[in-house]
């Protein structure tokens, strides 16, 4: 079964520094870290103390709100440090790694022969559960829910995003096993969306396949959900990243928690952008070390639209499959607002001549290109959100925390990443992703 999803609205931002199709093994870090704040809304309860010996798959902490959800170690080693911030909030659990990994054996199983609860239990026990997130709210799924469907988007449209065709290379069996396992978790269907290119994904069984085409954010799973099976009040839809599907499959095939993933190291500040195989929790410096150009750069875990700023001692984000390094933009530009001047910048509007060269790739820096203002321009946000939603009115309702209005205007259907392009194009430099994230947190608190 296959249907097409064609997205007309949106904006593709072409950036220089895309990764070449070449995968190398990154240096193994000596120190690994797990950052509980990477899991939005999770209050960590530690299960280890300094000096404890860990294998791959040993639980490190669980979520206070749901003790079943465990977070496990990506390497074998010794717990070295527990870093706390304000109010003793746990920021990171540092592990000094052994030279070689030993694994906890969860027992290889055939997912097709298991029942839903058994699949769930193995996922929870092994630490794979956090890979499953839910809509609404864009947080880790609640294992006690029955999702109406599960969505996997294997089509990346964000600027500098890693191509899933590359990151999934050679993982066909694992991916299929992962799908088999996930399909046990819902009474509805598992939806897999792919781009135009042919790959093994076209032949995956047990899914509804969607061919997606269009500009960014066509690849965002939330946009696809809105087109295929929109989230209503009270609904739960689960989402999983494609590499995580393969990791889940790998768990069932081998009985081991598989923390490796392929990430793209991209951006104009990288000497030769390409793909690397890394282990979750690896330090950024072990991946980017010696590969950056000189000059002030910003290292972003994730893509330039939705990623988070990191420093070399931080680790790559749990949900990220790319590291983008861009030039920092802390410079002034004299009369920089003059129309039709400064055509090295990219704009959706045609107040630059850059619209005359639609295929040009840009080297954008992190300058805000202006100052934050009240909402003035109208109609621009609608151009980049391919959903049946009025984004400006939803943002305004969210800012004044009018819960009923937020509900009515479709807060359950959106995630911050869907508003990333609105961050980008906003003339008034409205921080749309932040507003939506705060709005979703409010809804979790008030509605749940």
């Amino acid at each position: 079964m296959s249907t097409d999803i064609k997205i007309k609205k949106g904006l593709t931002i072409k950036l220089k520094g895309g990764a070449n199709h070449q995968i190398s093994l990154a240096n193994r870090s000596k120190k690994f870290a797990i950052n509980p704040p990477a899991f939005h809304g999770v209050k960590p309860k530690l299960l280890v103390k300094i000096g404890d010996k860990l294998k791959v798959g040993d639980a490190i902490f669980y979520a206070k709100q749901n003790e079943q959800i465990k977070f496990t170690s990506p390497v074998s080693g010794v717990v070295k440090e527990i870093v706390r911030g304000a109010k003793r909030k746990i920021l990171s659990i540092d592990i000094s790694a052994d030279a070689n990994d030993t694994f906890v054996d969860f027992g290889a199983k055939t997912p097709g022969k298991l029942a839903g609860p058994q699949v769930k239990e193995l996922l929870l026990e092994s630490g794979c559960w956090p890979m499953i997130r839910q809509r609404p709210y864009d947080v880790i799924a609640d294992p006690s829910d029955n999702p109406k469907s599960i969505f996997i988007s294997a089509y990346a449209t964000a600027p500098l995003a890693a191509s899933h065709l590359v990151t999934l290379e050679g993982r066909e069996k694992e991916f299929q096993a992962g799908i088999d396992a996930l399909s046990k978790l819902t009474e509805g269907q598992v939806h897999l969306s792919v781009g135009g290119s042919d790959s093994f994904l076209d032949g995956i069984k047990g899914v509804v396949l969607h061919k997606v085409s269009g500009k960014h954010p066509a690849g965002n799973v939330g946009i696809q959900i809105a087109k295929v099976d929109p989230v209503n009040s009270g609904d739960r839809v689960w989402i999983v990243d494609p590499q995580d599907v393969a990791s889940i499959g790998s768990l069932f095939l081998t009985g081991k928690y598989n923390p490796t993933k392929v990430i793209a190291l991209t951006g104009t500040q990288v000497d030769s952008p390409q793909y690397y195989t890394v282990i979750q929790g690896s330090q950024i410096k072990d991946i980017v070390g010696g590969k950056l150009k000189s000059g002030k750069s910003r290292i972003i875990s994730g893509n330039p639209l939705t990623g988070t700023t990191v420093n070399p001692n931080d680790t790559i984000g749990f949900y990220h499959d790319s590291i983008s390094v861009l030039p920092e933009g802390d410079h002034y530009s004299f009369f920089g607002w003059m129309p039709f001047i400064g055509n090295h910048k990219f704009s959706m509007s045609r107040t630059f001549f850059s619209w005359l060269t639609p295929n040009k790739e840009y080297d954008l820096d992190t300058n805000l290109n202006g100052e934050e203002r009240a909402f003035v321009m109208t109609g621009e946000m609608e151009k980049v959100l391919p959903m049946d939603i009025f984004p400006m009115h939803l943002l305004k309702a969210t800012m004044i925390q009018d819960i009923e209005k937020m509900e009515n205007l479709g807060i359950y259907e959106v995630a911050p990443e869907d508003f990333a392009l609105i961050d980008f194009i906003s003339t008034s430099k409205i921080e749309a992703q932040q507003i939506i994230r705060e709005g979703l947190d409010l809804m979790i608190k008030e509605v749940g």
Partner: protein
Amino acid sequence: MEFIRKQLDKIKPHFDKGGKLEKYAPAYYGIETFLFVPNHTTKHGAHIRDGIDLKRVMITVVFALLPALIFGIWNIGYQNMGEGKEFLEYFIFGAIRFLPMVIVSYGVGLGIEFAYAIFRGHDVNEGYLVTGLLIPMIMPIDFPLWMLAISVVFAVLIGKEAFGGTGMNILNPALVARAFALFSYAPYMSGNTVWVADSVADGVSGETILGALAGGVDPNTSVFDMFMGYIPGSVGETSVLMILLGAGLLIITGIASWRIMISCLVGGSLMGFLFNIIGSSTNELINFPWWQHLMVGGFAFGLVFMATDPVSGAQTNKGKWIYGFLIGIFAILIRVVNPTLPEGMMMAILLMNVFAPTIDHYIIEANVKKRKKRLQKVNV
């Protein structure tokens, strides 16, 4: 450029927190950010941003106004001095009359904006860059400067700042200024002879086409003159050709809504056409061909530069169609039927400004209903 940057950096610490001029920081930043797009980098959300900002938008609109502005200044001289002079003579005559109005408008308006920014501790907003130029372009050329100043004060204080500044206002500030002037200083605004410089003193006939038609006289102006703008009127409004150039820029750059422009044009045409069909033996305006209605008075100027104001207009795309259409309808309706106002564009836009949120409300309500219906379908 380096020099200016250095000077700015030198005085900047005084305006920082704890500096002795801290209170005046908004004024300093107003000037600094005008000269230099600041070095602010992204802190939240997307790490890269579109090159556009509100300054660029506003300046683009000012650029779009320039053709009409330059022509209008020339036309002041042309209307006053008649045929046979050099371009520059007309232009200089016009500039001497018009520039003081621009200076007063910007001086008073920006003065209030800066004072407000300091008083309220927020950034100086760019909105007045456009408003400040629009106001003199829609006033009669002989309008006394002190009256202009008071109109500007009213527009900025009551029309805008009272609601919270740029982006929060309900009515288009430039039209608020004009409406204020019309009701407060009616003799200077509404006579049929105020639209040409010195027309009263020099005995030049300064009647506008609409004024003449309202008086039952056919002014016998050629269509070519109407289109080119060789007719009496306020600085901005006369030349349809120059306004179209501006409209082109606004549509190409994507700054102004083409939806509003087109629907307003359709609305105005339809209303004029209906009047043509009805016909009348007493009201010349009813018989005035519908397509010529679109070329005279402030219709074209209002359509391109006032109706499309994103803050006071409808915000949803569907709403924009309705909003523009109704402006067109009402502009011609008021123009033709109301005997005291020879021009209806200003009133039509102000009226629809008031109703724009209502239009949007129903468009959004439809979206909400659709969502609720979908939920019901699932729950059944």
